[in-house]
């Protein structure tokens, strides 16, 4: 059967021809920040955001050719492409502080050097796990980028301004599926409930402040540039609670995972993911592709 009630937005289902990839470089080349070199603090901040996007893009890429419906192959590829675009811009910008390219950072860092949060490292699981992970992450990222459009760092500002519109669609896609799976059948409801139990422990880490604060305040080098994550929590909670309620689901009362991704302390899942991502590049160090 074809799903007649297509839960994807027009934007998400419109696939991106190969030519559109050029567009993603436009921000990175924009006149505002073409040669600006970020401070180490800003670079580390950008690296954390970029790693989250990169790891999640890598995960979503695994769905392509395996999705429940062709429309979802297209939609998940779209989201993965958007995230990969954000990652490339953020890593390229961060890399200027250390004279590294986006590929140096993606392919030639080891596990403890990555700054991704544990949520994006969690495996795809079934479609319910992928959707719950996406709902949590897109909701957080939407609040984050909505604030970063006011950043005084021109590159961070420009990247956020482009990304926030895309993330709004990612969130909509996740919300639409959350409703369908939450309300659809007993089985889909049960799978969503399981996915929420499995993934909710990783919510807290998204709002940990220690990477950007010192003595309880935003580091002075990041003043006006970065967002204190905990300030986003209330809006995240109310928005997700509203969606889950509509979907006849609840945020489970569960334990809180310890996190540590921003310090380079990762889950067991990251190592194999990086091994696969980096294998070819590392077989041919110095080669260009």
């Amino acid at each position, binding site marked *: *059967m*074809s*799903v*007649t*009630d297509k*839960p994807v937005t027009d934007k998400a289902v419109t*696939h*991106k*021809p*190969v*030519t*559109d*990839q050029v567009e*993603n470089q436009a921000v990175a080349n924009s006149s505002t920040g073409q040669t600006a070199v970020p401070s180490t603090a800003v670079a580390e901040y950008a690296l954390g955001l970029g790693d989250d996007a*990169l790891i999640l893009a*890598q995960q979503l*890429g*695994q769905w*392509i*050719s*395996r*999705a*429940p*419906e*062709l*429309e*979802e*192959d*297209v939609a998940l*590829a779209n989201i993965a*492409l958007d995230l*990969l*675009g954000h*990652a*490339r811009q953020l*890593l390229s910008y961060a890399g200027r502080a250390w004279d590294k390219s*986006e*590929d140096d950072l*993606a*392919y030639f860092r080891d596990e403890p050097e990555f700054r991704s949060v544990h949520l994006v490292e969690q495996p795809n699981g*079934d*479609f319910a796990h992928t959707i719950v992970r996406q709902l949590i992450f897109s909701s957080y990222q939407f609040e984050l980028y909505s604030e970063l459009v006011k950043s005084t760092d021109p590159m961070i500002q420009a990247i956020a301004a482009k990304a926030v519109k895309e993330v709004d669609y990612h969130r909509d896609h996740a919300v639409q599926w959350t*409703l*369908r*799976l939450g*309300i*659809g*059948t007993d*089985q*889909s409801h049960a*799978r969503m409930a399981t996915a929420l139990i499995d993934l909710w422990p990783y919510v807290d880490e998204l709002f940990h402040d220690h990477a950007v604060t010192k003595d309880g305040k935003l580091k002075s080098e990041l003043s006006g540039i970065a967002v204190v994550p905990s300030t986003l929590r209330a809006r995240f909670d109310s928005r997700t609670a509203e969606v889950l309620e509509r979907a006849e689901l609840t945020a489970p009362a569960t334990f809180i995972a310890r996190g540590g991704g921003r310090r380079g302390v990762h889950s067991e899942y990251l190592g194999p993911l990086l091994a*696969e*991502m980096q*294998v*070819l*590049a590392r077989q*041919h160090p110095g*080669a*260009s*592709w």
Partner: protein
Amino acid sequence: MTVSEPRTPHAVSAVTDAGEGTDEERALFESVIADDKRIEPRDWMPSAYRRTLVRQMSQHAHSEIIGMQPEANWITRAPSLKRKAILMAKVQDEAGHGLYLYSATETLGTGRDVLNDQLIQGKARYSSIFNYPAPTWADMGAIGWLVDGAAIVNQVPLCRASFGPYARAMVRICKEESFHQRQGFEILLELMQGTQAQQEMAQDAVNRWFAPSLMMFGPPDAESTNSAQSMAWNIKRFSNDELRQRFVDMLVPQAEVLGITFPDPELAWNEERGHYDFGELDWDEFAEVLAGRGPCNAQRLQRRRDAHNDGAWVREAAAAYARKTAGRAVEGAAA
């Protein structure tokens, strides 16, 4: 009506069978074909014409969908972020082409669910080329350059196919395919300008994909069972051998730019013919792969079957949600 010139030894003269449709309907269909205009979904058409199109268009759609797999396998391992983005977009294009072609096929009255069942039950064919493995990154280049290249040579004439929705779908698909071919060429160019290991990887991939890509045009004209009728109906415009020759003539100068060779000792310019000669292809291998005994037939189908089965509960949930919320909307309107 008759085709103006017999384009193959098998060209047939009749485009409709007697005994089907009214005289008026048959005459109208024949005049549209004779004038090289387009048949649209609501027009009367002979059932054999409809069947041929459903078969060809759905095979084409299936090929796009199965064809995603060998490339999707490399998305997670692409050696640079730029290549990863391009490859993701390319495989996404293929899903889009599949969707587009299934939709065009649906205008002939056969639904996507039926076509999908035919595919996963192994009753439908797809391009045999996708039953070959893609073990190295250079295969991404060779698939783009050779496989998408052959697809374009096959598909450009289909932009003038007599069935409107198919012809229009092909216009868009060909535009994207041409980017795909260029990106494949560019992957190989980069490899050929790279390290010795990269050059060897590129040459090895081309060695493996050359003959299978030539076989994508189908069996030699003398053995092609569906060709003559399709040509009479203006679905097919050139014979398999004509298209194959056109492809070889196009490839040779491009291979020179790449500095890559083809594994065919008989490949040589023939001054007299004004074309490149090339060696006999291994049609026994072609028959084997077509019969399901190629290197990857089983795994390709199994992967599609798994995706379909694993996704069943998701599709059921979406359908159930649609039913439930349709009910709620009605209740809401009544209140």
